[in-house]
């Protein structure tokens, strides 16, 4: 009786998910492997060639740079916040991080267009060449605006967990600051940092709204390619290429997870 009830409660969600998520997933895979109504590898093959391959490489490169730079800078900022004696400053930075980590998409693009865009306030002062914001490094700077706060949110609790006693114990045993970080600090922080890097990579990789709103971006990105293939900006019949590209994206995201999960397991094993 209770078991039947339990099933009933979870049923609507599972049915909903199967319909709204499952059917598109099946359609995606089926479409990616169909060309001219027949099963084929042509779309997938084409999605890994020429401009599409460049776009995929561009996306991966951008996400990797954003993830690594965001992780390093975010960790430094988090460490500065956590060790600060000023409670108010700490609160302010953590609240701001929460807000900015959620501040992605279209508004983020307009912020930077107003700042460093062709008619931006700061680019005028600096005399930046036209289009400087719309390059690879321009996009990195824009993406870091949400990536660093995200990393601060991930790292602050982990850094809080580093007890001062560990540092004192290490110092009493004659360890230098470098040795403390190398043999105590970093190993304890590794799981959180790995998680942060994966999170940053994922959000930069999936970002579409920001890049799309920055009209005139010269950086090839796979999300932009999918969108233009889907909305028929190019020739008709390219939808299946969009599906193949989407499949490639999911594979990349899946690969990142496949690398991350065992690493995470290894690095947390001794913490338990």
């Amino acid at each position, binding site marked *: 009786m209770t078991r039947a009830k*339990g099933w009933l409660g979870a049923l609507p969600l599972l049915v909903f998910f199967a319909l709204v998520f499952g059917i598109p997933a099946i359609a995606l895979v089926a479409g990616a492997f169909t060309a001219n109504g027949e099963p084929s590898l042509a779309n997938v093959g084409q999605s890994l060639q020429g401009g599409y391959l460049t776009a995929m490489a561009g996306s991966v490169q951008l996400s990797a740079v954003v993830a690594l730079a965001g992780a390093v800078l975010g960790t430094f900022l988090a460490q500065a916040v956590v060790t600060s004696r000023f409670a108010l400053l700490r609160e302010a930075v953590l*609240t701001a991080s929460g807000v900015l980590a959620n501040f992605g*998409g279209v*508004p983020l693009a307009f912020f930077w267009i*107003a700042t460093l865009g062709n008619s931006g306030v700061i680019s005028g002062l600096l005399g930046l060449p036209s289009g400087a914001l719309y390059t690879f490094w321009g996009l990195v700077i824009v993406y870091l605006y949400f990536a660093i706060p995200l990393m601060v949110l991930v790292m602050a609790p982990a850094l809080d967990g580093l007890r001062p006693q560990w540092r004192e114990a290490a110092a009493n045993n004659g360890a230098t600051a470098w040795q403390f970080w190398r043999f105590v600090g970093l190993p304890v922080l590794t799981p959180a940092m790995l998680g942060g890097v994966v999170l940053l990579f994922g959000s930069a990789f999936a970002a579409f709204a920001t890049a799309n709103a920055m009209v005139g971006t010269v950086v090839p990105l796979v999300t932009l390619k999918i969108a233009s293939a889907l909305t028929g900006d190019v020739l008709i019949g390219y939808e299946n290429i969009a599906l193949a590209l*989407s499949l490639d994206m999911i594979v990349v995201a899946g690969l990142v997870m496949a690398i991350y999960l065992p690493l995470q397991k290894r690095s947390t094993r001794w913490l338990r």
Partner: protein
Amino acid sequence: MAALTGLEPVTAPVRAPSRPRLWRGAVFLLAAAYFLIPLGASLWYTIYTPTAGVSFAAYGELLTAEGFGSSLLLSMSLAVATIVLALLLTLPAMLAVRLSAPRLRPVMEVVCTLPLVVPPITFVAGLTTSLRTGTDVLAPTPFWATLIAVQNPAFPVVLVLAYVVLVLPFVYRSLDAGLRTMDVRTLVEAARNLGASWPHVLFRVIIPNLRSALASASFLTLALVLGEFTVARLLGYQPFAVWIVTISGSKGQLSVAVSILSLLLIWLLLLAVSTAFSGKERK
């Protein structure tokens, strides 16, 4: 920042702690520059033009801009519908998993994590394809009308469905955090033994205990739906975020003004989330 650097000389004689403090000051200064300059520049961009000088016209113009009201209304109603549907689907499922079907827990975990792993744009790609194929395949059946009605531009139900999938991870985390703080099984058994009906248990026992978790799930959903661009743009609808991009070409100042307001809105929503949780702790 000034207060921080001003205090340094006081602690300077003690050598060991003074070095990291200098380092910390530098980090804070750099971070402040990187995060505050765009904010200030955007604000300046919206209120200053070389011809008209300083004016707040961009913010006034917002209210009268064509499409502002209708797109905001659409986004708001989509958000409300998404919140209601997401909670209606998730809460019973999570209660069921806790009360009588613990074996479903891994399934729930996967269902509520997948939307985070799969990039939204690939989800839309699959969704548009299935909608198109569905319209072709179902043309002779009564389901066809349903599929068309779901895509009604006045109120695109399909967006609500897609948004529910996208917010599932956040709703799940919030509710999970709320359910962790109470012993659901004991509460339900106690209430049932005292003769309470199931609806009574749900509305008078469970939901009051979950109030802060429900509030935080709702605010997070609201923030996500109001800012959502990818799905709406690719399915061809015009809620708020899509509208901003549409007008940005002709009204640059206005779009930046909206961006500043949306930063404020996110801040207010997160404030609401945190007060919802701290309010509970006080009790």
